[in-house]
């Protein structure tokens, strides 16, 4: 990777001291170009045009759809879509099933994110304490699971947890007093969703571990040493030295994980063979179900829009963090 090394100039070493307390220093604006203001916009034009077309327009359409009546007959053009005001929303919001789905989605997301972050942090800390060869082994396993296509991982987990021939039931049943032979993990919603959560966490942990490991190398050893001399235990050092340094990374990873885990779809969809039962529905599958199974595109759009609005707060936190980071140049 000698070519790669040239991209990290020796002139700009990463700062190794702890971030200064208080607000970060004001970022330096990029030097103005002589080309006037037209050049950057010309460079941006293709990108902005494409995004406006493939993202902006559908987003607007999503909002307008939510306020219309749009079903099978509108899709085929037999009827014009008519405006119905907030009817779709009131229908969705007064539906008991919908609130169950919301609660289930929040529970699933919180569970998956906490599980991912805690496990990721623990493994990252463990990597600092093991011998080199163990570290290499763990890294291989992590990168392999990270690189697995989601669909492949889902089919593999389906196989691992299969009721009759799955290795998991066979292995666990070897423990004394446990008999899970023929146990169907997908007979109940909570158990099945726990399996899906495990699948999501398994796929998400590697990115968290690798990012946090990179972050841990930035924690100044002198600070840890000083904390230890002041009588802090391992937990104290972690709590008062490591965590504050890692905070921006942790905020970024947590918000990203929330966004990703709220958007879980193929995992549920493929696990349940394309027809998730009621107790497996999350907001994403529920919106899909309304639109493409019941053919009520307007209601599906309303649910999708509510999902996006729910995520906005999380996105705002992520953006603030990214801007802080992105502007430090």
């Amino acid at each position, binding site marked *: 990777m000698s070519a790669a090394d040239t991209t990290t100039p020796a002139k700009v070493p990463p700062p190794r001291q702890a971030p200064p307390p208080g607000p970060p220093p004001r970022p330096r604006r990029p030097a103005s170009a002589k080309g006037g203001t037209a050049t950057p*916009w010309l460079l941006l034009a293709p990108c*902005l045009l494409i995004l406006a077309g493939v993202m902006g327009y559908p987003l607007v359409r999503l909002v307008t759809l939510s306020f219309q009546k749009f079903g099978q007959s509108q899709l085929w053009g037999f009827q014009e879509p008519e405006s119905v005001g907030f009817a779709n929303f009131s229908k969705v919001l007064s539906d008991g099933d919908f609130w169950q789905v919301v609660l289930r989605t929040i529970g699933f997301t919180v569970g998956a994110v906490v599980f991912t972050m805690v496990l990721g942090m623990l493994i990252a800390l463990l990597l600092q304490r093991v011998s080199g060869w163990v570290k290499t082994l763990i890294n291989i396993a992590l990168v392999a699971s990270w690189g697995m296509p989601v669909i492949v991982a889902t089919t593999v987990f389906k*196989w691992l947890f299969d009721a009759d021939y799955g290795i998991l039931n066979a292995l666990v049943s070897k423990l004394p007093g446990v008999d899970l032979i023929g146990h169907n993990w997908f007979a109940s919603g909570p158990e099945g969703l726990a399996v899906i959560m495990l699948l999501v966490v398994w796929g998400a942990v590697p990115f968290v571990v690798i990012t946090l490991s990179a972050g841990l190398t930035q924690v100044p050893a002198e600070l840890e040493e000083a904390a230890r001399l002041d009588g802090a235990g391992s937990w104290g050092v972690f709590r008062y030295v490591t965590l504050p340094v890692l905070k921006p990374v942790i905020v970024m990873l947590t918000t990203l994980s929330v966004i990703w885990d709220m958007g879980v779809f193929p995992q549920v969809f493929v696990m349940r063979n394309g027809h998730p039962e009621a107790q497996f529905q999350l907001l994403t599958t529920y919106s899909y179900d309304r639109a493409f199974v019941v053919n009520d595109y307007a209601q599906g759009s309303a649910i999708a829009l509510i999902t996006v609005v729910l995520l906005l707060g999380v996105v705002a936190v992520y953006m603030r963090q990214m801007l802080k980071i992105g502007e430090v140049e």
Partner: protein
Amino acid sequence: MTSTASPARRTSKAGWNILGLLVFATAGFPVYWMLDTAIKPAKDAIDPDPSLLPTGFTLDNFSRAFDIADFWGPVGRSLIVSLSVVLIGVVVGMLAALAISRFAFRGRKIVIVGILAVQMVPLVAMIIPVFLLLNDLHQYDKLTGLIITYLTFILPFTVWTLRGFIVNIPRELEEAAMVDGCSRTGAFIRVVFPLLAPGMVATSVYGFIQAWNEYLYALMLLSQENQTATVWLGNFTTKHGTEYAPMMAGATMMAVPIVVLFLLVQRKMAAGLTAGAVKG
């Protein structure tokens, strides 16, 4: 390193190592089990009390996988889509990344926020309007429709990642070239571009993987006859149950090339993605 360590230190190290090996075994097991099932003779693969170790080596499951559904058609379509998306994404993304990393202009911050925000909208939420839009444009069940759609998530990714790589190239190099008589464009082509090449390759490969792995849009926007490789994996589940051994063979064929590609660029990408993340 360990030669000077005290015995107590060494036992604690051994303890951590055992824990580390447990993590390795747990994280790696699903991958191992996929490969193991794929090469096992069918009767050993479907066994209520399966052996944890390989019981033999056969390629029967692979040939069964080819028989169940056409494999090369979907793979060809996935290749066309992924390569086209990456090509457009890297070229267009490069121009945009240059604009936001090397120019100061009014509205720059809004553009950055916009590009970041686009990445944050869950794809699933967009499927309904995208489906209707492609329906209106008569692009349903066409690869071009899928390529356009994939740009929604590939383009923000390429812009942001390439920006990260460009920012890491010191501006002084360009300035020096311009002092020596290069034009701005010349300086970019002769100085920045060569330094950027590894980052561009990594971004392309990673973008390719993302496009290749996408499932939902491929499933929704293409008909059964024109499915892509990820959707192909769904063929092993029928009304009569799931053909697990061939499915694991199919999964292996899908996963191995992608994981290898991923291994090649992962380090570079991790550095690019988190560049500056700790500098906050």
